[in-house]
């Protein structure tokens, strides 16, 4: 007998598809109707499946129910509207939309939805919340957990973001080339931030981090499946995500504490993801274009490669290019770390101190590391400042451990 199980995250995955397809007809202005219908569909599924067992094709079952519910909804509205409309245009007969759930429609609608959500003109924080809710089917509570924020805050953030989305009155339709070209940058940036939210998240909950990362990969994968969005940058971003994700298992121990790169068990790296990263990186490098995703993917590639004599030399060169394309304090600090690996701690200290990012915990963390070998007192001082500045509990633990090691070493001298 075949044992039937519901695929993990089935509802969540289908939620975004159903909403996207329904929005084609209802328009974003009425996205709540589409979302209500999707939720009602799952409610019905959970009631019926619980008693009667799984249907043969659960996904098709969901689509049929959603389609019927959508049609019911339109008929319901029509009852009110026809009488008024008859008075104005008595002969016009509205053709009923058919809510087609073919794989082509789903992928077109999802792509259009990704573009709509990522271009809704919200702050990047709200944009990510919105993407998590509409594109990934996350609940308010789940989003709040991921951000380590109160549910009330998330609710407010989402309300504002949705108001903006509705204002755009975006019509979910197959995108044309011009729209895609002008908006793809913003879309990629949102997906990049969504991924980083998972990868560098403050939460210790490894499950949430993994889900955020794999959702970003899934959405970026959708972009590679359409010739218009399958660009060098998209592939570079996907390569970056694959390389980074390959180390997710190794980055944390069972207590949820961060494990530094050098101390990671490389056997835990996911080889399949590294191979995929290689594949997309090669695809990304077919043209002449070099974007920041190319450079970051290149850096991640070198990190995922066991050993090469000139590894850090390569990484430093990539950081040199990256910092010139786009300045960010974290890139500046990472570059200095690579600089230290190539030219030694002493030279790197003077590079680091020039950065003068005294309000950054990572700045003090780096200087603590760089002074570690030569000047324990200074190193401890920097680590202590880093502890004061960081909000992350895990980081506080890791830094405290470093101080203990230094003190122990001093005592032995």
């Amino acid at each position, binding site marked *: 007998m075949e044992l039937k199980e519901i695929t993990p995250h089935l509802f969540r995955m289908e939620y975004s598809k159903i909403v996207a397809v329904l929005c084609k007809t209802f328009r974003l202005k009425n996205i709540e109707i589409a979302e209500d219908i999707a939720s009602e569909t799952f409610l019905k599924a959970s009631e019926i499946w619980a008693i009667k067992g799984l249907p043969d094709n659960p996904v098709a079952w969901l689509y049929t129910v959603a389609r019927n519910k959508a049609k019911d909804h339109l008929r319901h509205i029509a009852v009110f509207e026809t009488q008024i409309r008859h008075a104005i245009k008595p002969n016009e007969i509205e053709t009923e939309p058919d809510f087609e759930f073919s794989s082509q429609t789903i992928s077109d609608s999802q792509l259009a939805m990704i573009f709509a959500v990522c271009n809704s003109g919200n702050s990047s924080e709200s944009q990510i919340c919105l993407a998590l809710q509409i594109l990934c089917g996350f609940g308010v509570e789940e989003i709040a957990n991921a951000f380590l924020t109160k549910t009330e805050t998330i609710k407010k953030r989402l309300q504002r973001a949705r108001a903006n989305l509705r204002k755009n009155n975006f019509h979910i339709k197959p995108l044309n080339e011009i729209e895609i070209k002008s908006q793809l940058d913003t879309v990629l940036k949102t997906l990049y931030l969504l991924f980083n939210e998972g990868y560098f998240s403050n939460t210790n909950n490894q499950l949430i981090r993994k889900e955020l990362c794999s959702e970003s990969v899934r959405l970026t994968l959708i972009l590679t499946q359409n010739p218009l969005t399958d660009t060098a940058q998209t592939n570079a971003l996907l390569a970056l995500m694959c390389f980074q994700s390959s180390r997710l298992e190794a980055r944390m121990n069972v207590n949820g504490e961060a494990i530094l790169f050098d101390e990671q068990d490389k056997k835990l790296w996911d080889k399949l993801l590294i191979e995929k990263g290689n594949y997309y990186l090669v695809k990304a490098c077919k043209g002449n274009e070099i974007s920041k995703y190319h450079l970051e993917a290149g850096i991640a590639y070198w990190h995922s490669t066991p050993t090469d004599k000139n590894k850090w030399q390569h990484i430093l060169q990539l950081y*040199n290019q990256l910092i*010139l394309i786009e300045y960010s304090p974290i890139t500046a600090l990472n570059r200095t770390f690579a600089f230290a690996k190539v030219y030694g701690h002493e030279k790197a200290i003077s*590079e680091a101190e020039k*950065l003068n990012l005294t309000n950054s915990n990572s700045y003090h963390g780096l200087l603590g590391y760089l002074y570690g070998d030569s000047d324990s007192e200074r190193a401890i001082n920097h680590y202590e400042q880093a502890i004061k500045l960081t909000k992350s509990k895990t980081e506080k633990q890791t830094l405290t451990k470093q101080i203990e090691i230094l003190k122990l070493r001093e005592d032995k001298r």
Partner: protein
Amino acid sequence: MKEFLLVFRGDYNSMPNASPEEMQALTQRWMNWVAGFAAQNKVSDRGNSLVSSGKVLKSDGIISDGPYTEIKESIMGYTLIKSVSIEEATVLAQDCPIFSYGGSVEIREIRAM
């Protein structure tokens, strides 16, 4: 924050006769140097380096080859940086790799429009 133009001058004829390996090391030093500025968020345009040959056109219509026939040090490249003062900009330029082969850096404030 003010903007400054760094003009790198040198004598193309006195360029070191370096091996490919040494040339690469020198290139690497330049890249590290500019990226070091960028890491302090002080680069506004990484600029360009110039090819050695050129033309000079004068008011009397005479065209001559290259600036370096008359001046020993010709412009080799430029970079635009951000800095609070010309004093700081000068300090920033102090470890420019060009000094390792006898060139100079001219630091000029960009006049705000």
